[in-house]
């Protein structure tokens, strides 16, 4: 039996616990033992991306310590946070003889959720069912940063009953970018409108992403404009069974 250490991320923990619960349900259904190290907080990405590396280090060191005590693969429902650990920890701890190896050993056993399902568990059909149309938005750090694109698409293609509609200009950023959405609200808003416009053009009521940050950004934009579309995390789609709603 696989031992999964869940790193649920600060946003899912705080704002979207149902995403985490869906992820746990899917993993357990596939036979994995799922554990949740209780001391976890955040990967440190917000201060890192802002250029505040000392603050980022404090959080990253805490994350490394927390998961060092937990055996098994670390699985994250966020491309962005997985990218932080896999690629940016090496930057953050560069030249540090103590922390760099510890960061690298965490990075080596860290996986994004869909990557874990497809590449590690070798699953392409989780037995999910969804009535109606879905549209997939490849989030930037997932598909560009980690090169993960085939996996979520494969999983969605195998969702029974779902009609997956292509999103125009799918690879364009939604305008979140962490602190960017606060520091440059005008730019963020333009990029958001463009993304929402492309979503509307598909006629799909549901947009699927693999990142809670982008989910929060897109859903916040849809709510502000009083639009009916829903943004969901892929775990929620994969957890959806026949007859449920």
């Amino acid at each position, binding site marked *: 039996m696989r031992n999964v250490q869940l790193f649920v991320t600060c946003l899912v923990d705080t704002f979207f616990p149902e995403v985490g619960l869906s992820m746990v349900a899917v993993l357990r259904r596939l036979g994995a033992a799922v554990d949740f190290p209780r001391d976890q907080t955040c990967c440190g990405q917000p201060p890192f991306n802002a*250029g505040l590396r000392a603050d980022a280090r404090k959080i990253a060191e805490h994350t490394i310590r927390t998961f060092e005590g937990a055996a098994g693969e670390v699985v994250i429902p966020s491309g962005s946070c997985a990218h932080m650990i896999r690629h940016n920890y090496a930057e953050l701890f560069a030249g540090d003889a103590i922390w760099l190896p510890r960061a690298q050993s965490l990075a080596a056993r860290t996986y994004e959720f869909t990557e874990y399902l497809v590449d590690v568990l*070798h*699953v392409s059909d989780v037995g999910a069912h969804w009535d109606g149309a879905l549209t997939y938005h490849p989030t930037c750090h997932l598909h*560009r940063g980690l090169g993960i694109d085939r996996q979520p698409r494969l999983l969605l293609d195998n969702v029974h009953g779902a009609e997956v509609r292509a999103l125009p200009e799918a690879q364009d*950023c939604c305008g979140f970018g962490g602190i960017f959405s606060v520091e440059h609200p005008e730019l963020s808003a333009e990029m958001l409108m463009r993304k929402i416009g492309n979503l509307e053009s598909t006629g799909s009521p549901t947009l699927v992403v693999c990142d809670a940050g982008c989910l929060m950004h897109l859903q916040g934009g849809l709510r502000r404009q009083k639009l009916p579309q829903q943004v969901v995390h892929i775990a929620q789609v994969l957890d959806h069974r026949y007859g449920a709603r």
Partner: protein
Amino acid sequence: MTLPLLRSRIRASISNASLQAALDGNALRRVSGRDAAFESLPDWRERRKRAHAVRADVIEHLDEYVDQFIANAARNDVIVHRAQDAATAVSIILQIAQSSAPPGRQALIAKSKSMVSEEIELNNALERRGIKVVETDLGEYIVQLRGEKPAHLITPAVHLRRFEVGQLFHDKLGLPYTEDIPTLTAAARRLLRDVFLTADVGISGVNFGVAETGTVVTVTNEGNGRMCTTLPPAHIALMGMERLVPSLQDLALMLSLLPRSATGQKLTVYTQLINSPRRPGEVDGARERHLVLVDNGRSRLRSSPLKEALYCIRCGACLNVCPVFREIGGHAYVGSDGSIAPYPGPIGSIVSPGLLGLQQFGHLAQASSLCGACKDACPVDIDLPRLLTRVRAGGSEGTSSERGVGLSHLSRFGLHLYGIIGSSPRLFTISQFFGGLATRILSTSSDWFRIPALTGWGYSKDFPRVASKSFRQRFQPSEPLPEAQPAPPAISPPPAAVQENALPLVEKFTREAEALGVVVRRVAAAHLSETLINDLKQAGAAEAMAWDPIEGLDRSRLTAAGIALTGEPDPLLKVGITGAAAGIAETGTLLITSGPGRPLTASLLPDVHIAVLPASLILGSLEEALSRPDIPAASASVLITGPSRTADIEMALTIGVHGPKQVVIYIVE
């Protein structure tokens, strides 16, 4: 509270409908053009890795490569100057201009595109001394007439639409108002032709310097670059010291990537390889060539965490794919004093602060969502998002831990606080509790609620309530029920690589050249003179500038048929007839090397350029062509890929800017 200058520029750009239309057009056309161009280079990923390695090697050993390059250029009789900073570079150029001026007046300078000249603010300095500088790239000419800076690395007038250019030409040049792009282009051709013919000095930028040969390489489409380096008596090549490649073979690699990334072309129309001033027996080419190598912060950048930014080959692809550039254009990238950054876009937000200081330009690096589209598009695989986070962390001035360059005070405070909360599970849990409380007070009924615009987030988005029970409160650590695992998925094989049609070289050459608008005529050797005479007579051409000799062509038969041939540059002649040193099948390119009897102007000044190309000289690739021994030996060579063209106004392709409007190639079999 007043908005920082950058944000007010951003707002102005976003609300400028005409600018938005222009930028959308640029993004759409450039991105699709680039994608199409890379389809013809199936191994581009591997090339991109190699190109990265070449640039990394150059920057790592820059001192040695610069020394080698300078020694070889000097051996070629180029006068080499080194400038530590902008002021030195300006004064060197000023001196050359003054010593090149005819008695009794200041020098007239014809200038082709150079981003380094923007960086050192050369034009202003020259004009303050009463020296007239005329920008001759169509886009640069337009922005100079408007008193602006270029808005893009390779498309200076990207921010303008045709009606604005029409109005400008009407106001400043007294031309009848028109929105017809070919008419506007023809007007610029006519006006600038005089400048080329009378200028005392030509200034050009440099795309690459080749260390092993001392060659200066420029890549242009319109022909103005060739004019500026061929017609005026003195030529100054202005070059950032990092723009080197070790060898001509490395150059071939770079040339396979640069035009594709920049303009979606397999090769730009004119790729010049300049070795030396005019040599005895030659009738054109600058008599004096200067090379000004500029440091201006590059050495400091090289020993900083931003070193990789020096790998940049200035193709502008990262601007074209950038969602932020697409919203604001180049003029919104302003420094803290309001001046426009010389280098815009993602790479500019690293290079501008890297060269000219964090204080002035560091905050530009915050204007990115770190989406990574720039890194994907970069032909030399620069990790731009990483470098942007390094600028934010203090960049070239040391990644001091407390930097957060360009952050607002509120964000900085919030993130410091988050650093404390995020490293303590207890504080984190307590914050979740109070956050939940606060957001449920702010929004009693709905999961999403409105927050003020001044928070940044609230400008366009609602905010979610903190969950009433966090994940950590809801997680149940129970053991799973074992369930049958679904079978592993069938992995579909990767799509088969597209097989490049292995056409014979002549066919391939013909197809590529014709795609560019070149007229290709395939004739048997015995019929060449007769066919050419007939064609010339039909076109009504009774005189032409011609090489002497031209391989495969009996010139005496042309003269006997009443066609006057001259070897001297004459701007009044409409036809130029040349041979070629080689043809390149993969791009439909002619290689022309200068020498006695082979004037460069024959393929540049006339409206029609006729080239005689023996089929046996057609090579497969650029690499093969650049390994020919006559390239380092000639005073200058040029690769010609189609007729002169521009897309500087609204990205509309217009043929015949400064160079020939028509290219006719006779392939002799």
